[in-house]
């Protein structure tokens, strides 16, 4: 299969969902992790290729301070997570990007670090943004303890007991990362430098590997501290308890602009998922084995929804919709859905479109993909993107052609009245002191003259207005010479002509924008579960929860 063909008619076109439906923010904000999420892709590859794992360095003192190195060895290369464990006073513990100290800091090293590398990293990695890494590093990250659970687990293990499973499932993780930087940040290797490695082709594979090892580190750290405290009495975490622990992540608006700044990447992620769904829907029949896989996935999803905890009103509403919807789905699957009919998956999907809330429909996407690995897993290779074409503007296109593209793909952008306060209430900007993206209230806060160009709808509407004043045969090149302020919008419109999923089709400066919807979309592609908003722009999630550890897929983690 050639990825470029995905936007053509590949026989599944009749089963594709339209971009006008898929790209609405409410639906993107109901996305669920699936087998084509990036962490699942990483784990599959490592299993398929029989990667091996070891822990060449484990040097922690009685307070749990020191360094640990984990190594993953694949067919051609190896990667090492270098971990620095610190003793952080409680008053310094903040998940915000503005923090300056953390319980642990990490760098993913390209290969096996020698002593000089480790010393260099020890002088820089604990400083995070204030330090500097090199092109030998693929990611830079940090994590804080989930204090209550961390202490509880050490207490229990040190006494020779297992921790309370309810406390484990309520928190879900021992540590949560508060930033994972990759792609050239703070001096690390550029994406460009590793993009052609097969194991790094799919997006965020280095970052996912780093987080997966961070999960293992969090378990090793509590077991180490329990041993120090309890001596011979101490026990290790049971397999069940260990599996129930993921690694948390705490994140805010910083990741939202990414989806807007990388339209080709967003298009490819969504296109792959939609093609995968269309392939499943186009299947003429459903084998007993595949149906059993679906049933098992549905059972897991219902259990996951039961354990999924949040106190935020927005999420409580969504969780109620999900639980109710999954209940309806289970009942329908058990009593009504005819698995022997032609195109049974399409029939199930068609039923869901009117019977289920959006939240449960999007859960069904993940459930339908789950037993169809052979059919859809190969699509993962199409999720990467060469983003260079974003700069290839066609200056010879004339004004009327451009306007036709706007009419065809940007009706959503022309609907709002951007002169009205409600439709232009917000503005995105970068804060001066911490250089982090934020969302301001345009009519209540200063700074909108320094707005980031994330107001795509408004930009396209302004371009549309400018085109109305142009002769229809005027080339775009000439318009941009006179009005360079429209360059960004022209690029987006031309780029979207062949990439239907490149734009979030909603007004990103509207008063009723829910920024967490953007976060959830991206996090679902990472593979995040237990999405738990702490405000309308700040969220905690869990990664790798319920999934295997290195010793479960690559033999024992050797010293």
């Amino acid at each position, binding site marked *: 299969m050639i990825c470029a063909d995905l936007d053509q008619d590949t026989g599944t076109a009749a089963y594709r969902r339209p971009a006008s439906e898929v790209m609405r923010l409410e639906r993107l904000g109901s996305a669920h992790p699936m087998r084509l999420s990036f962490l699942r892709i990483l784990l599959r590859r490592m299993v398929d290729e029989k990667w091996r794992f070891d822990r060449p360095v484990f040097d922690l003192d009685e307070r749990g301070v020191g360094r640990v190195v984990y190594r993953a060895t694949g067919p051609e290369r190896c990667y090492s997570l270098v971990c620095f464990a610190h003793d952080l006073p409680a008053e310094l513990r903040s998940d915000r990007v503005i923090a300056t100290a953390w319980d642990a800091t990490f760098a993913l090293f390209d290969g096996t670090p020698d002593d000089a590398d480790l010393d260099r990293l020890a002088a820089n990695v604990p400083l995070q943004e*204030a330090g500097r890494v090199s092109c030998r590093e693929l990611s830079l990250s940090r994590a804080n303890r989930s204090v*209550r659970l961390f202490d509880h687990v050490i207490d229990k293990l040190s006494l020779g007991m297992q921790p309370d499973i309810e406390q484990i499932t309520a928190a879900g993780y021992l540590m949560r990362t508060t930033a994972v930087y990759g792609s050239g940040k703070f*001096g690390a290797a550029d994406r460009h430098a590793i993009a052609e490695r097969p194991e790094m082709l799919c997006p965020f594979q280095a970052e996912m590997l780093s987080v997966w090892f961070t999960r293992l580190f969090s378990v090793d750290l509590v077991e180490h501290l329990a041993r120090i405290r309890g001596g011979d009495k101490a026990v290790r975490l049971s397999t069940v308890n260990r599996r129930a622990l993921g690694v948390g992540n705490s994140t805010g608006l910083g990741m939202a602009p990414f989806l807007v700044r990388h339209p080709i990447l967003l298009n490819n992620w969504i296109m792959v998922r939609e093609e995968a769904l269309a392939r499943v829907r186009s299947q003429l029949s459903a084998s007993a084995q595949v149906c059993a896989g679906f049933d098992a996935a549905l059972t897991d999803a219902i259990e996951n929804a039961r354990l999924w905890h949040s106190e935020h009103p927005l999420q409580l509403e969504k969780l109620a919709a999900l639980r109710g919807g999954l209940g309806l789905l289970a009942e329908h699957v058990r009593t009504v859905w005819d698995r022997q009919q032609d195109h049974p998956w399409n029939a199930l999907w068609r039923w869901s479109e009117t019977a289920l809330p959006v939240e449960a429909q999007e859960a069904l996407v993940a459930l339908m993909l789950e037993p169809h690995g052979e059919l859809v897993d190969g699509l993962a290779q199409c999720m990467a993107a060469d983003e260079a074409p974003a700069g290839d503007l066609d200056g010879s296109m004339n004004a009327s052609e451009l306007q036709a593209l706007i009419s065809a793909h940007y009706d959503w952008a022309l609907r709002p009245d951007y002169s009205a306060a409600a439709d232009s209430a917000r503005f995105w900007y970068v*804060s001066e*002191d911490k250089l982090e993206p934020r969302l301001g209230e345009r009519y209540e806060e*200063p700074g909108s003259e*320094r707005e980031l160009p994330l107001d795509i709808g408004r930009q396209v509407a302004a371009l549309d207005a400018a085109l109305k004043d142009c002769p229809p045969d005027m080339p*775009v090149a000439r318009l941009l010479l006179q009005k360079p302020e429209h360059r960004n919008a022209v690029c987006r419109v031309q780029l979207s002509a062949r990439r239907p999923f490149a734009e979030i089709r909603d007004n990103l400066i509207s008063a009723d924008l829910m920024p967490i919807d953007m976060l959830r979309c991206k996090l679902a592609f990472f593979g995040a579960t237990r999405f738990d908003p702490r*405000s309308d722009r700040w969220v905690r999630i869990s990664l790798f929860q319920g999934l295997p550890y290195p010793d479960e897929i690559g033999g024992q983690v050797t010293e």
Partner: protein
Amino acid sequence: MNKTAPASVADPDSIFLSLSEISSLTYRATRGAGYEWGEADEAAFASVWLSRAGLDWAGTILAMLWGAREHPPLPARGRWTAAGQLCPLRTGIALADFAHLPEGLSAQPVECVAVAQPLLIVPFVARLANSLDRPIRVFWTDAEVCLEPGQPPLIGGSVDAGKPADVTIACADTRLAMPMWPQSHRGELCNAQYGDLTALALRTTVPTSIRSQAGAGAAGGDND
């Protein structure tokens, strides 16, 4: 974009940035200097291209951003002029935009009169070589740059930023043996240049208000 200069181990006055850092810094600095965001994207592309080619990206871009605001070109068949010196960014962008139009390079060679920082138009001509799938030569003063689609430049003479120059751009027929892109993709600049670019970039940021800081994090604490 760090406000403090990243330290370099080898030369205390020399800083190495990743390509994504170069892109991000140039993007914000160009916007901070008053260009449109879409133009800032193009400047970022140019900085990265120059850096990969081992050329003076920081000096060239800073000369443009700190210098007087030059003029956009008036494209005409064969000869592009303006009321004063040509802005290299806008000229470079226009050369690529006009590629397939009668005023553009696909129709005839183009002479751009009095281009400030002429090196800055080279990345855009390289893009042009890609889109036309033809080798292109660029000449000014004693500089000659040969560009093959997708290849790094083959440079003769001195391409240092220097004075404004008349630049001739012409499609070439013969293909040349070209150098390879370097394995290492790091861009070098000095502390002063980093400081200047950062100062411009900070013009795109907004001072923190109590309200914005409060809204940016979780509603509760993190010691749970």
